[in-house]
């Protein structure tokens, strides 16, 4: 993966930059020794590593603003980082860039039950928000698998999802306000404790912008009352076609489950061996459907789902009779990634989204690819919303296997786009899928997106080398090619 050529002048001016940063952030908040920097050299996409120029850990918005101004003045790039759990290299450092860690922004500032929201700092973990409001039976809905550690700031930057987003939406649907700091040090507030931002929806743009537009320093999230009840159905199918039809029929019956997850045989076996969730080992596909809400409604819909499962040829069918049993159903799914990690030295997690109807075709072609590349693949699938996580199994110690796995992964993502889907559902483009953007977008599409970046960060200093395969200067992007006197188009109706 080729990153932008580091700026030698910035690297040469490192000492002066560090001195300036230490003038703003107290001693232990600026890290520059080679040993300590090593800890920050990668995020969750461990295949790519780069030691940053320096790491800075500010504690408040004013310090963030000062740090960004200093970096701007020194021409240094800035990479924001939360917990560093990105699976796409979104927080991968740059050789000529300062890594801006937001770990010290770890406070819940306000819980406002009356307006059903919480104001939190970006370094608070996703789960900590739900924990903080659990006593009042509230929770924060998006629940990415990494929720114990991943931060809300990172969730906003990546627009994270989770297993419940079919019914409750992803991050962008669950936040009300943001405070951001721009690369020039300016602080801007977007939204607040009310619905719909006024003016342009810059909060919508910030969400999922992968740290390229601004540094998030405060988030106002919506909190929801916990559903009265949740029950899950665990259904095994003898073949993938049946499971695909089952998912389509549940949706077709007008049911929007709280969660609907599918695993193929490889993933099911790995999960079962890892945590004995009681999964049927003979099923080609396993589907977990969770219904939540009012007790009367949940019981009624459970009955409907069971009936659809039988009609679609389920080979096994279990419905949770207790909260413990429901959690047991989920335990295997939630542990699917580490479980696969046990059966293979390494795995590479992909993240495409496809129309639900294309599932069997995609799985079939993926099996062919698996044979062609000579690498096994296990599939975990957010079936409700079409988000597919193929896990490609490989061994990094075997010469060339990582490259083969990456090639295989790229083929899968191209296939997702070909059937009407997208490159990434929730993990982000980052560095990982950057060079595949052309599969989905034209040059004009990407240029227009970069013009938006120019409005936030005209020098292109914030997290460059991520998302966009080709970097353009803002001046170049702003140029217009005018062909004066062209035409008045004979074909266009005018009056």
């Amino acid at each position: 993966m080729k990153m932008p050529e580091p700026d030698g002048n910035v690297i040469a001016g490192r000492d002066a930059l560090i001195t300036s940063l230490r003038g703003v952030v107290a001693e232990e908040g600026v890290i520059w020794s080679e040993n300590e920097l090593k800890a920050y050299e990668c995020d969750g996409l461990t295949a790519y590593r780069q030691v940053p120029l320096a790491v800075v850990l500010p504690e408040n918005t004013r310090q963030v603003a000062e740090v960004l101004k200093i970096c701007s003045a020194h021409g240094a790039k800035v990479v924001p980082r939360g917990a560093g759990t990105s699976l796409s290299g979104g927080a991968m450092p740059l050789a000529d860039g300062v890594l801006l860690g937001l770990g010290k922004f770890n406070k819940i500032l306000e819980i406002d039950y009356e307006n059903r929201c919480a104001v939190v700092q970006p370094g608070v973990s996703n789960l900590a928000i739900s924990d903080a409001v659990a006593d009042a039976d509230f929770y924060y809905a998006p629940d990415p698998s990494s929720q114990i550690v991943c931060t809300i700031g990172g969730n906003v930057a990546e627009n994270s999802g989770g297993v419940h987003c079919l019914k409750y939406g992803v991050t962008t649907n669950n936040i009300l306000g943001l405070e951001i700091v721009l690369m020039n040090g300016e602080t801007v507030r977007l939204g607040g404790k009310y619905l719909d931002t006024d003016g342009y929806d810059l909060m919508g743009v910030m969400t999922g912008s992968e740290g390229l537009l601004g540094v998030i320093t405060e988030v106002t999230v919506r909190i929801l009352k916990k559903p009265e009840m949740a029950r899950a159905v665990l259904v095994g199918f003898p073949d993938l076609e049946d499971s695909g039809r089952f998912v389509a029929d549940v949706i077709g019956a007008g049911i929007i489950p709280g969660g609907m997850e599918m695993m193929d045989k490889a993933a099911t076996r790995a999960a079962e061996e890892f945590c004995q969730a009681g999964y049927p080992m003979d099923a080609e596909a396993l589907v977990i459907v969770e219904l939540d809400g009012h007790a009367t409604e949940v019981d009624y819909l459970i009955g409907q789902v069971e009936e659809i499962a039988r009609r679609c040829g389920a080979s096994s069918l279990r419905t949770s009779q207790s909260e413990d049993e429901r959690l047991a159903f989920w335990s295997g799914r939630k542990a699917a990634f580490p479980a696969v990690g046990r059966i293979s030295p390494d795995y590479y997690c992909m993240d495409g989204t496809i129309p639900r109807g294309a599932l069997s075709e995609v799985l079939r072609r993926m099996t062919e690819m698996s044979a062609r590349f000579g690498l096994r693949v296990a599939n975990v699938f957010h079936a409700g919303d079409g988000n597919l996580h193929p896990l490609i199994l490989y061994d990094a110690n075997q010469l060339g296997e990582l490259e083969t796995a990456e090639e295989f992964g790229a083929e899968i993502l191209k296939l997702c786009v070909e059937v009407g889907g997208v490159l990434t559902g929730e993990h982000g483009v980052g560095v990982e899928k950057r060079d595949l953007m052309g599969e989905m977008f034209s040059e004009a599409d990407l240029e227009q997106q970069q013009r938006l970046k120019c409005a936030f960060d005209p020098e292109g200093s914030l997290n460059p080398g991520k998302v966009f395969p080709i970097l353009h200067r803002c001046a170049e992007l702003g140029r217009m090619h005018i062909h004066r006197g062209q035409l008045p188009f004979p074909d266009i109706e005018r009056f």
Partner: protein
Amino acid sequence: MSETFRPGDADQVCETVAWAAAEERPLEIRGAGSKRNLGRPMDNCSVLDLSALSGLTYYEPAELVLAAKAGTPLSVIETELSENGQRLAFEPADYGRILGNAAGQATIGGLVACNLSGPRRIQVGAARDHCLGVSGVSGRGEAFKSGGRVVKNVTGYDLSKLMTGSYGTLAALTEVTFKVLPVPEKTRTVLVFGHGDAEGIATLGQALSSALEPSGLAYLPAVAASRSTVGYVSEIGTSVTAIRVEGPASSVEARCRSLRSLFGGSDKTEELHGHNSGTLWREIADVTLLGSSGGDLWRLSVPPSAASGVVSAVKAELSPSCSAEVLFDWAGGLIWLDVTGAEDAAHEAVRGALHDSGGHATLIRAPGDVRRTVPVFQPPEPGLASLNARVKQGFDPRGILNPGRMGTDY
């Protein structure tokens, strides 16, 4: 008389805008024109009429996704969806009537441009939350797209959100894609009678913070309630607090029972079934319960706990010759305020009342000369204003698309 261009497809929209950019000719983008009177008036514009870009381009009920050309009438889309037992869940509001036009004219592109959501917004999100993808033509005359046809997508910046609510000042939309949802089996509305403003809003908050999953939460003071065409609402002679629940029949019945016992039992409450419930929420969404006298109509988004205080503060500041009628939706988070007798739409009183609570006020209806001088949209803080202006610059460097509609700068 200004010239009107009516391109037949997206390529012709590109040609027209590219020409206008070269000539620096401002364009007023128009679908059906049903919300033409919303926003700052625009002068000396040629009209870019998108009504010929009409028709569904993709609809797979099993995928819960629909795409249509921007000029497609919303009524066409709603009919198609309803035949398949589906709907746009954010409950598009129709401002046609309050803006002095006929109802039922709006296009899907105009809906996106104005991000208009109805009462169900409180439960399922706004138009912006359901818009999955857009194609459009920037003020540079270049076609671009963003998003896709799947619900879960983080590939590139979410320009669909940026387009939603940008009032045509960034791009002329040519096609939009929406997530759609099934229509539940049953709908009922519980009415609670006789609350004062603060008490009614507290009741809505209590319902929303329960596990009963309400999909509509409005408070109608007695005057607004009296204008309903639903007898149970108009004839009671008091304020009406309305709470809607939707879902499978057994669930709806059980939740209605819970709500009624929570809020005073059968003496103080009533229940609307399918048809009446539908009529009432249509009236609330389309704001037809406020005076039809043509007063200045404000739409305020506030923290719900501040709602009744904001209204009291506005009323306290109004001059004696003015009067105001009010209606609360979104559990109090949305205030409709109809002010009569003010020369400047009482904008200082309205926006001043938001000072402590936060929130924003949009002047949805007022005479053109008022909308020319009073900011229709909440004036942003200076830092945000200049960021907005730079965003506009990135899409429409020559300022030819709906110039000034959202304010003097963009």
